């Protein structure tokens, strides 16, 4: 009998055993499958605006129109303060990371359920699905970011040196989206309620984040508590880094970053713990 050379392996390539207790995150395996992650991101981007008239410009239209509405109702009618900046750019600087967060969260929450067919038929690290959903939204993010730069130019606002912190805030947005996305995608596998809950939650979350109004409206002792919402830190950080608002990333940002990391790591472990049951339940 002719055998392949690998037949002489003395150690098993793979060992399959029942899951016990807290399993490791197996991040090295995730790395081995990075091509698949890359392909899922590529697929998401290619497919997202297929068969739409406006195509990729939807990435800009969403935050832009929200900004117009906010400027009309909050800026003009309600006279909401905007930290001394023109209201449109004030709200748009918040809406850019927010739109990315909201879309990523929605996509990531549904990623496992919409990939159910694959989960039931093929093995790959399941973590790739929500991760791809979150990362593929970055293209939209950068498109709307360009519009933000254009608006800054229009209003004659020059970015300060603080802009070097911007990558950190982008990273914080990604971590928050992925962290919450991991929790919801896992819960969604078992409880389809999540699908109905997420749009509502995003709406409520929008108003508990300083997008239409500045966090300076909130009195000082409460502001740290307010920072428990990781997106509060992100949005204020964005404005500080780009527009040079004088709210420096104080204790609120530290609380926000801390929360983001907690949500992300706990989401990661929860996801990994439930992962083995996905194929049976979804």
């Amino acid at each position, binding site marked *: 009998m002719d055998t392949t050379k690998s037949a002489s392996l003395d150690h*098993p390539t793979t060992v399959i055993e029942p899951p016990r207790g807290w399993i490791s995150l197996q991040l090295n395996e995730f790395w081995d499958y990075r091509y698949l992650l890359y392909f899922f991101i590529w697929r998401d981007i290619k497919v997202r605006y297929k*068969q739409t008239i406006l195509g990729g410009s939807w990435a800009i239209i969403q935050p832009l129109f929200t900004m117009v509405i906010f400027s009309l109702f909050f800026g003009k009618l309600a006279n909401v303060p905007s930290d001394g900046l023109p209201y449109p750019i004030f709200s748009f600087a918040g809406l850019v990371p927010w739109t990315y967060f909201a879309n990523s969260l929605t996509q990531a929450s549904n990623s496992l359920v919409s990939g159910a067919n694959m989960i039931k038929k*093929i093995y790959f690290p399941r973590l790739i699905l929500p991760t791809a959903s979150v990362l593929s939204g970055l293209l939209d993010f950068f498109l709307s970011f360009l519009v933000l730069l254009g608006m800054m130019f229009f209003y004659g606002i020059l970015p300060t040196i603080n802009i070097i912190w911007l990558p950190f805030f982008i990273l914080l947005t990604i971590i928050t989206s992925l962290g919450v996305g991991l929790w919801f995608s896992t819960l969604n596998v078992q409880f389809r309620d999540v699908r109905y809950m997420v749009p509502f939650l995003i709406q409520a979350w929008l108003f508990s984040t300083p997008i239409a109004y500045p966090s300076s409206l909130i009195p000082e002792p409460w502001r740290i508590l307010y920072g428990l919402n990781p997106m509060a830190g992100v949005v204020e950080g964005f404005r500080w880094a780009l527009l040079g608002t004088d709210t420096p990333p104080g204790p609120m940002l530290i609380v926000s970053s801390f929360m983001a990391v907690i949500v992300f790591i706990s989401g990661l472990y929860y996801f990994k713990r439930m992962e083995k049951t996905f194929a049976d339940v979804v």
Partner: protein
Amino acid sequence: MSNLAIRVETLSKQYQIGGSQKTYNRLSDQIADFVVSPFRRAGKILQGQFSGAAELDVTIWALKDVSLEVNHGETVGIIGPNGAGKTTLLKILSRITAPTEGRVEIYGRIGSLLEVGTGFHPELTGRENILLNGTILGMKKREIDRKFDEIVDFAEIEKFIDTPVKHYSSGMYVRLAFSVAAHLEPEILIVDEVLAVGDIAFQKKCLGKMDAVAQEGRTVLFVSHNMGLVQSLCQRGIYLNDGVLVCDDTIKSTVAAYLKTLENSSLSQHLSDRKDRQGLGHTKIIQIEIDNCENCSTSPIMTGQLIKFVFHVSRILPLMSLTFSIYDHLGQPVVEFNSRNRGPQDLIKSTNELTFICEIDRLLLLPGRYRVDAWLAGDNNFQDGIRNALTFDVVESQINGRPVAVQKQFRVFFPHRWLSPN
């Protein structure tokens, strides 16, 4: 020294049915159940019906203590009735689902094909889907690039390679999907009945490909209900029933053992009592009779006879149709009849008669033992399907004075006459 490809040790997999998964899995249901179940449990204890916690959660063992070893280069066919645990075994081996107990060791790269076209996206072109699907199946980019032309050639879709697959015909779609899968080159290949795709010419091509894989000395695990196919592709057979390994032997003996139990079960059990059915079940096949002589109850079935297959069904639904296929004692398909395939001689009976009758002018089967699978459709849905619904024997006889006898390989006989030179 070891030539081992797969070692499975006392593998078990438990599924919960009923209990917590019976409900539609809404959080509210779960909460309601969580609140109510202690009271229900208390009530049961008071009524003296309580027989332990197991009663509340109904679980089944899809696999129970299965142990086996497969060496490199072996081709193994896994057979058994529906729900025997075949697919569960493959799913555990390909790491899609985790076992409840036991251990599996795999030596070498494993590739599994539980369905073709997984991850295909309708909006992407053929070219893009090849890349994506190949990656999902575990191929490296370089590997896909190298085999790209071969894949396109095999699928016969050169002209449409840059068309989104949503515009493909279903045949083209399946051909492309299979073609990507067929070019997967793992050391251990796991296949679950994906061969029944495409037209006959393409099926033949797929079989050739599978055969080539087996010939190359790679390890293949193959699940199928097609006894003919497993016998032609595999050397070794594993027969699972109710999650338990019943037989592990050469493919010939395993198939023989399986068919034997099939026959026994169909002889001992009344058709209407059979539970191993598929389909919606709004109407069912409750009895099948063979009527081969007027005015007499039983007589042996002979080649060349007028014979009627009478199927009694439980209910009449709109747009009903019945299909049945006849297999020989080796499990090779011989012939299929489909009532939807209409001809001018067909008769529609009054609607309150609960039978389908298939009249065959001359039975062309050679002597031997045959079994019948039957499928019932109605109301635009698949309603009932029973494998091995009936077993019958055709006995040796004569047609026009010419003896008709058992033949080793062949199954049909045509009435004929010879004109010879001497």
